[in-house]
């Protein structure tokens, strides 16, 4: 079997890009950061091509196969996340670059580019890793980069948000590490693929899973452990908020899903799964309600992330102890929800950033009149909102439809109520923003105008979130390669 490109390139390229953009003089950082983008695309497409041609790929790092060494595993799920990362990151990078070009100098955000590329390296290392300790190092890499990006502006609010985020991230990864210690002591291996057979189903494995789940939901900001998220995501630069909400919180959820599917069903019990589902339902309701009550635009979008994370946790009760069909539907629905939320939320954060820049105020109440001046950004915001609400034909709609069918199929109708009420709450907060923007308030005729590239980046992401709904079949077919649910669903 000859592959076109070995998997480690997906980590070497962003890591090299990060170090190169750290080394070069400041005035070249943006250009160099952008120059690595096409390379990243080439590598991503080549690895996707290998997946299509040869199926699931495994790379034994250092030539040492597991359990002695660390392996990279590229199944459909992992490479789907890699492709999503490349897509969302490219558009956020374009947004950040044109913002820097507009300001004429980038002294204020000089170290943005090395950190952005470190973020991609950290994300790819998590998507590909098949070793539970290596995932811990990846989580720390991601956590510190994200904290740094939040703190970047150096203002008092940013520093407080970064500190709160850092404390949550550190506690979360320590809980995860405790779980790793227990699993290694009980199983003697760190390979993710071995866990199901060797870790057993005794108290040690259960405590380990409980601790790891606790740490990971803290990092994913699942209700009621979400308090660190809104200030961190709501206060950062717009492209940083977009990346954090679209991709970073998904990384810890991704590890949780991998663990849950790898461990013995006696360890990952239905009761625990239902508890996670209940917390997810709480997140949908509380996050939606809090989003509606916000007065600052970016905080509204950040609370919307808290709500949308909730939907993703309905995965656990829908796949644990249910039929293969219900499980397959939940798998498809959750992945589609993950993709469409990543695209729509990134689009929404970029659009919100453009709107804030245009009005020169972070408040929703100051939006009045903006519908005439910045229709394109407002349209992107609305388009992303349609996907978050789950109206047809968006990706959010198809995802919710699949989850709904899975809930009905497994006889858990109460999750359907959560899906519907959550959709109504999303509609409430999206329409709150739109209502304010169409009001002709006190006569204002001066708005700043962000560059076209920034508006187009937001529009492209929001439109992609819509397109996922129209062409849901192809990403799902890809991501089913090597999945435990096969081609069902």
């Amino acid at each position, binding site marked *: 079997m000859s592959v076109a490109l070995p998997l480690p390139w997906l980590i070497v390229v962003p890591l090299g890009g990060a170090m190169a953009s750290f080394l070069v003089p400041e005035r070249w950082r943006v250009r160099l950061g952008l120059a690595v983008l096409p390379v990243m695309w080439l590598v991503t497409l080549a690895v996707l091509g290998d997946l299509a041609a040869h199926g699931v790929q495994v790379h034994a790092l250092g030539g040492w196969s597991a359990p002695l060494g660390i392996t990279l595993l590229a199944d459909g799920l992992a490479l789907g996340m890699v492709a999503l990362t490349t897509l969302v990151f490219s558009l956020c990078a374009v947004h950040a670059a044109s913002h820097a070009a507009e300001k004429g100098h980038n002294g204020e955000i000089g170290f943005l580019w090395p950190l952005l590329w470190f973020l991609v390296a950290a994300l790819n290392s998590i998507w590909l890793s098949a070793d539970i300790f290596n995932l811990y190092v990846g989580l720390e890499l991601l956590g510190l980069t994200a904290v740094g990006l939040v703190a970047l502006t150096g203002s008092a609010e940013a520093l407080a948000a970064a500190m709160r985020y850092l404390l949550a991230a550190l506690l979360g990864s320590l809980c995860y590490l405790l779980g790793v210690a227990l699993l290694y*002591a009980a199983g003697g291996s760190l390979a993710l693929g071995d866990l199901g057979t060797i870790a057993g189903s005794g108290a040690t494995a259960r405590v380990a899973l409980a601790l790891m789940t606790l740490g990971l939901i803290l990092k994913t900001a699942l209700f009621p452990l979400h308090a660190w998220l809104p200030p961190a995501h709501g206060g950062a630069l717009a492209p940083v908020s977009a990346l954090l909400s679209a991709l970073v919180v998904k990384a810890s959820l991704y590890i949780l899903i991998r663990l849950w599917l790898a461990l013995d069903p006696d360890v990952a019990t239905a009761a625990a799964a239902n508890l996670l589902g209940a917390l997810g339902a709480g997140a949908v309701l509380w996050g939606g309600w809090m989003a509606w009550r916000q007065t600052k635009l970016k905080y509204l979008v950040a609370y919307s992330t808290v709500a949308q994370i909730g939907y993703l946790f309905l995965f656990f009760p829908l796949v644990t102890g249910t039929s293969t069909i219900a499980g397959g539907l939940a798998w498809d629905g959750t992945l589609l929800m993950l993709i469409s939320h990543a695209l729509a939320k990134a689009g929404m954060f970029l659009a919100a950033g453009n709107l804030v820049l245009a009005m020169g105020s972070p408040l929703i109440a100051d939006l009045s009149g903006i519908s005439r001046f910045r229709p394109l950004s407002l349209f992107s915001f609305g388009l992303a909102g349609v996907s978050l609400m789950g109206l047809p034909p968006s990706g959010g709609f198809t995802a919710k439809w699949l989850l709904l069918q899975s809930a009905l199929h497994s006889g858990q109708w109460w999750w359907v109520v959560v899906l519907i009420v959550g959709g109504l709450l999303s509609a409430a907060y999206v329409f709150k923003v739109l209502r304010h923007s169409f009001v002709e308030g006190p006569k204002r005729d001066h708005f700043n105008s962000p560059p076209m590239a920034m508006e187009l980046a937001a529009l492209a992401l929001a439109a992609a979130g819509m397109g996922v709904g129209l062409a849901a079949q192809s990403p799902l077919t890809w991501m089913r390669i090597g999945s435990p649910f096969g081609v069902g669903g």
Partner: protein
Amino acid sequence: MSSALFYAWVGVVLCGLGLFGFILHRHLMRRLLAFNIMGSGSFMILVGLAQDGRGADPVPQALVLTGIVVAVASTALALVILRRWYRVSGESRLPEDV
């Protein structure tokens, strides 16, 4: 009880103490110290428990060395952010704890 298992038990106690301090305290420096105590506890569990009844195992020892570097980096970053925060706000606690 083997000495390896004893170390693991001490690690459990340190973890409990660290977590208690981490949640209880509001001063960021104390919380950071509590985090480090908890980290040391988990490293002791990682090495001690894996070697109980099986003799020396180089793998968890290497993992702990990696973990220590990561913990040093996180603590240093937290201290830098803490000092910057103190400099702009005059506070050594988070705004909601003041």
